[in-house]
């Protein structure tokens, strides 16, 4: 790093601390002097101090910051020193390299093209209410779902995934022979060969193209994107296809699960072509920032799905707890992404998030203080598509951005959840060719 950028670097560390401090202590509490021991001075109690540290750890991406602070005072000075000594350097702390101040990431992967596909049968939600034996209008009134996309007889995870992948390849002007990796994810495809292996054959990629499946259910897309980004960053791959596909309508059927759960889900797929930033044709692309992941195990019992010996599904679904957890955790993830990226949520063009149901999306937008229109309405018209919800939302956000002049394109935030309660977030910024 050039020596001249060090003061700016220090400013960013301080701003990160101050942001996290205000979140913990409240905006009315003045920022204390560097050497003030926050606990001894009674500004934070010991629980508040640990909570503040955890927030800084998440924003900084340094998981062991708090243990580095043993035997040190509970002060900004000690924390700043620990941050300086920390091995990780998050995007929020790096000097921006773009004159427009958007391009904070040093990640090497760009998202060159995207696509999504949904089941070809569009079913009004009232029909689904009837099929599950629920009062007609329940899905529309309670969840905000107007229709659901279900697969036709001749469609399945593979056909939807292949359709989305082929369209994305076309969008990236990329032949299947150029793919180095296929990273696939699905929460409903449990057959062998796996989805990535089937896609490998269906797309007719090179034999030495790697096929990998990642899990995580609704978080699957973010897991897959993180893997793809790592492969590109480490030089293992130049071009990677990330594909999601979920067909719920054959698994979560009436008689097998309750309508309050099964009725929320539709069928869909999404695909993304990721390339190295070194690729010469990347003018309409978005650059991937960093990802953050974790597991909020206190919500593990809110949703559990398992097979039983007699072939039925055992579903444990505490809708109320899960809704509360989803809102709280999504807000927390988006706040962490905001802190870590240094991109204020108000300047984000689109939120490609998981959408358990449209009502929750509206609540999340409200909690986060952003416009609901920045969340592409996937679940409202197609239902919850599992791992493909976030994918379809990301594709839609990219499509909207593509229609705008290049200089007006804004960052996109990603956030999703999976049973466990797994959570993850990340961001994309418009990529400027050659920078």
């Amino acid at each position, binding site marked *: 790093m050039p020596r001249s950028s060090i003061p700016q670097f220090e400013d960013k560390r301080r701003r990160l601390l101050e942001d*996290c401090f205000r*979140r*913990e202590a409240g905006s009315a509490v003045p920022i204390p002097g560097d050497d003030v021991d926050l606990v001894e001075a009674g500004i934070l*109690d*010991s*629980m*508040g*101090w*640990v*909570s*503040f*540290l*955890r*927030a800084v750890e998440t924003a900084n991406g340094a998981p062991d910051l*708090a*243990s580095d*602070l*043993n*035997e*040190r005072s*509970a002060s900004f000075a000690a924390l700043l020193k620990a941050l300086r000594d920390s091995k990780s350097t998050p995007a929020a702390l790096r000097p921006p390299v773009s004159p427009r101040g958007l391009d904070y990431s040093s990640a090497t992967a760009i998202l060159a093209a995207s696509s999504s596909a949904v089941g070809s049968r569009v079913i009004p939600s009232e029909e689904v209410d009837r099929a599950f034996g629920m009062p007609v209008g329940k899905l529309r009134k309670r969840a905000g779902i107007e229709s659901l996309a279900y697969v036709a007889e001749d469609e399945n995870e593979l056909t939807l995934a292949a359709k989305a992948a082929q369209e994305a390849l076309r969008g990236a002007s990329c032949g299947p022979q150029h793919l180095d990796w296929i990273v696939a994810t699905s929460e409903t495809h449990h057959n062998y060969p796996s989805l990535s292996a089937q896609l490998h054959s269906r797309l007719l990629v090179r034999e030495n193209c790697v096929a990998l499946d990642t899990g995580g259910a609704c978080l699957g897309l973010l897991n897959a994107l993180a893997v793809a980004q790592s492969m590109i960053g480490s030089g293992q791959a130049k071009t990677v296809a990330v594909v999601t596909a979920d067909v719920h309508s054959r698994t979560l059927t009436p008689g097998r699960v309750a309508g309050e759960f099964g009725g929320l889900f539709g069928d869909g797929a999404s695909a993304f072509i990721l390339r190295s930033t070194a690729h010469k044709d990347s003018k309409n692309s978005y650059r991937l920032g960093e990802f953050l992941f974790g*597991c*909020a*195990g*206190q*919500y*593990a*019992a809110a949703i*559990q799905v398992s097979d039983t010996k007699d072939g039925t599904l055992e579903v444990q679904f505490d809708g109320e*707890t899960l809704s*509360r957890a989803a809102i*709280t*955790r999504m*807000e*927390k993830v988006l706040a962490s992404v905001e802190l870590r990226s240094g991109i204020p949520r108000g300047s984000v063009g689109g939120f490609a998030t998981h959408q358990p149901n449209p009502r929750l999306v509206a609540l999340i937008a409200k909690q986060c203080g952003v416009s609901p229109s920045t969340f592409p309405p996937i679940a409202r018209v197609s239902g919850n598509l599992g791992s493909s919800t976030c994918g379809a939302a990301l594709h839609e956000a990219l499509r909207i951005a593509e229609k705008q002049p290049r200089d007006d394109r804004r960052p996109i935030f990603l956030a999703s959840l999976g049973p466990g309660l797994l959570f993850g977030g990340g961001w994309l910024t418009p990529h400027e060719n050659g920078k």
Partner: protein
Amino acid sequence: MSRLLITEITRMGPAFCVIGLQREKDRIQSIRPIPSCGHGWLRFPHRRCDILDCALTPFPAPCPHVEDRVATSGFQKSTTIPETEVVTYLRKAEVSRSLPDLFGCRVYENKTGSGLFAIPGEAKRSICGCETQNLRLELCANELRATLALPSGEVLRDLPVVDHDWRGFVDAALAPSRGANQVARLERFLNSHFHYKIMSCPHHFVRLGLTRPYHDYCWLMLDTLFPLPRPEWLGEF
């Protein structure tokens, strides 16, 4: 006179909080003796596992600290029972296998940082025991913190450990007289020997509690961890 088996002594700031078990017909319930002013004892000359006789007066404590009773006389020790027997009684008192059953209410996560809390008006009690699938202690910025998995699979992170004996053990482990690298040595102990000693112990049991309302929230904490630390463990690291 009431007879109390002292099951937990917790330390927060300068004061001690004491909880005991009282048998009432077939039921064993937790009782928190408190002084006539304040919620904690600045001096409590008895130990866990002691059985004490004392006079207690019901006290209209606001939820969730329904276990509060004002001690109107001194404590007279009648006997001491083994730690294993204390756990046997604790398993017959308030126990839960899942997060919502712990305090009979929803438990919320801190939106801005770490920790879990309950809303005072929603919680039905302030103390509950549980078995754990797994438990980890760590030293986080000089504070002892616990992360544990309940039998339901729900994970509770970053709970402050207020158990007087465990805090005393950590203080002793970090005493300057113990030589160099005390923190690193303690961390190594907590990450290796501790896990084996605690999780393999047949009377492993924890009790979780709620703090007094603080800015409208009652925060979860780990009140008691059995087995209690042994002084000889200090010689192992």
